[in-house]
């Protein structure tokens, strides 16, 4: 259980964040300079907030009202910084044992051995940090942090020093390690993939404020504001107006085109933004069988630009009646692209499912709803 509320004023920057989280993995997600690291420093006790309250697993670490501010060494945090900060003068074994010097020698040895095995570091015990790869260094830092059974494991940009190709493997390893240790984990990252993969709960931070805190699904598929939608890679954000709203459906006007969405209690004339992830736009098969129900929200148009990224195509699609450079971004696996014959024929019909649309009323874009507490 993590309960953080704090304010800190710095030169030209004000941090004012609040969020709660239960067990599991919490991700602080936001662009560089958003205040993520500062938040983390306040939790580990390196930085003192001006006001607020920090509580971890029922233990009060900082309380501005009473002046309580535990020093880092009394907070029981397993901190893994971006650089890993392994002690270069100590071996792997000595690094892992650093936080458990109070145990007697036999128990310490046993625990170090456990941690070495947990982190898959067998055979490297006597190496020094500079003789290890980036991934191995990270595992040593994790083992060192976990050895003292911290209340909270805190990871700052865990994969920024790792080659892209290795990140997938290491993310899975981290997930596995966290699951086996059962320790609540707080990850700070600006990487969308990290956030999606590691966070069961995500706190989106920007310019010193929490924009939204919620489950991973909430953040990715139901962003509270346009800004959050942009942060989480919702590349299609359409502006529309409510034409009709009833218990069955929401009828929207998207630049003169009708668009049907799931019902929402909105009044006629309300301005909205529609968030659609590029992977959620369907392309209707040219040989679609006639007895199937008609596709939802169909539009004709042309692929005007395409880029192959790894094994997916990113298409820019312009509607037939449009004068814009393009109207939608569509992402689809390469084999689907080929099966649909898009390599030969650029004209297509697309369908936007009601369930693929997340509608945000524009009046709330200012973002009062998103901050809990």
């Amino acid at each position: 259980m993590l309960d953080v509320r704090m304010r800190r004023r710095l030169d030209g920057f004000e941090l004012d964040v609040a969020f709660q989280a239960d067990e599991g993995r919490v991700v602080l997600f936001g662009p560089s300079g958003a205040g993520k690291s500062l938040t983390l420093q306040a939790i580990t006790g390196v930085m003192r907030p001006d006001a607020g309250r920090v509580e971890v697993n029922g233990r009060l670490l900082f309380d501005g009202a009473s002046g309580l501010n535990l020093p880092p060494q009394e907070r029981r945090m397993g901190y893994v910084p971006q650089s890993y900060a392994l002690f270069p003068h100590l071996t792997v074994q000595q690094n892992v044992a650093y936080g458990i010097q109070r145990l007697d020698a036999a128990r310490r040895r046993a625990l170090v051995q456990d941690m070495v095995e947990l982190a898959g570091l067998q055979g490297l015990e006597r190496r020094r940090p500079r003789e290890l790869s980036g991934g191995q260094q990270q595992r040593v830092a994790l083992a060192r942090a976990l050895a003292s059974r911290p209340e909270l494991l805190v990871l700052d940009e865990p994969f920024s020093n790792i080659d892209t190709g290795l990140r997938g493997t290491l993310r899975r390893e981290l997930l596995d390690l966290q699951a086996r240790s059962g320790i609540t984990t707080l990850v700070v990252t600006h990487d969308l993939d990290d956030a999606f993969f590691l966070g069961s709960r995500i706190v989106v931070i920007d310019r010193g404020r929490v924009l939204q805190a919620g489950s991973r699904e909430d953040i990715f598929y139901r962003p509270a504001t346009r800004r959050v939608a942009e942060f989480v890679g919702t590349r299609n954000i359409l502006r529309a107006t409510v034409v009709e709203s009833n218990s069955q459906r929401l009828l929207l006007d998207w630049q003169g085109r009708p668009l049907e969405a799931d019902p929402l209690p909105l009044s006629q004339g309300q301005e909205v933004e529609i968030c659609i992830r590029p992977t959620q736009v369907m392309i209707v098969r040219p040989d679609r069988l006639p007895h199937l129900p008609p596709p939802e929200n169909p539009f004709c148009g042309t692929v005007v630009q395409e880029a192959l990224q790894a094994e997916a195509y990113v298409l820019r699609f312009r509607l037939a009646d449009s004068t814009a450079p393009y109207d939608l971004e569509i992402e689809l696996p390469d084999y689907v692209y080929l099966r649909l014959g898009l390599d030969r024929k650029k004209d297509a019909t697309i369908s936007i499912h009601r369930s693929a649309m997340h509608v945000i009323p524009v009046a709330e874009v200012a973002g009062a709803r998103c901050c809990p507490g």
Partner: protein
Amino acid sequence: MNEGTSPRRVAARAMLGALAPDRITFTLSALLLLIFLVLPVAAILVKVARATAPLDALGSSVVTEALRLSLVTSSISAAVAAVLGTPVAFLLARYRFPGRAVVDSLVDLPMVLPPAVAGLGLLMAFGRRGILGGALDVLGLELAFTTAAVVMAQTFVAAPFYIRSAKAGFEGVDRELERVSATLGSSRLRTFFRVTVPLAGPALMGGAVMAWARALGEFGATIMFAGNTIGRTQTMPLAIYIAFQNDLTASLVLAGILVVVSFAVLFTFKALLGRSPLGAAHA
């Protein structure tokens, strides 16, 4: 294995590279300075080797007393500089406080002052007629012209060398390591001794060795503040100077001993540092 990468080819290319024009220029000018630095030292050793009965000088108690006194006082001075200089270096490296620039300059001052000025200053502060002389007299302490004065003179001129090096060493320690140490439950003091000091170790050791070397060579401040009493205040440099005035051979032998001892210490230190897990970057 093709032609281009055969070991012989690689070696040949390396030699050609070594002979590139810029390298020649650098190597020649470096040689010039090296010769200039080495020649006087070598000259002393050559003259000692050619002297008739050089070992007679060793037998005299003047030489052994001076050598003993020099080694003892310079070691104490280096130790004092390290013990008292470490907190100063740490404060200067880590904290911003009012007057920091002034303190920083004061610490460096003895390095640029002529040793004669240092000696005069020490005498005016701690001598019998110095500003603290009266107070010391009440306590029954007389510092000037004692072995303690030798140590004071040496520490005064040598401490800045230690503090410079230690400060740079502390500045070079990654603060993140100290933060991590704290989150792992270590108090500030434990972090200091388990992380900061070991990591700044090569710089601290280097500073101590430089301070020791400077103390060993101290002459001007010592002769003014401590005098020139055999066995009590006559260190090697003083003995060399005195001997130079009536017995060149004895002077040469003393100088030769000082050269050999100094070189042995510096060389051993560099060799040890090169082997330590952190040393390579500092050596």
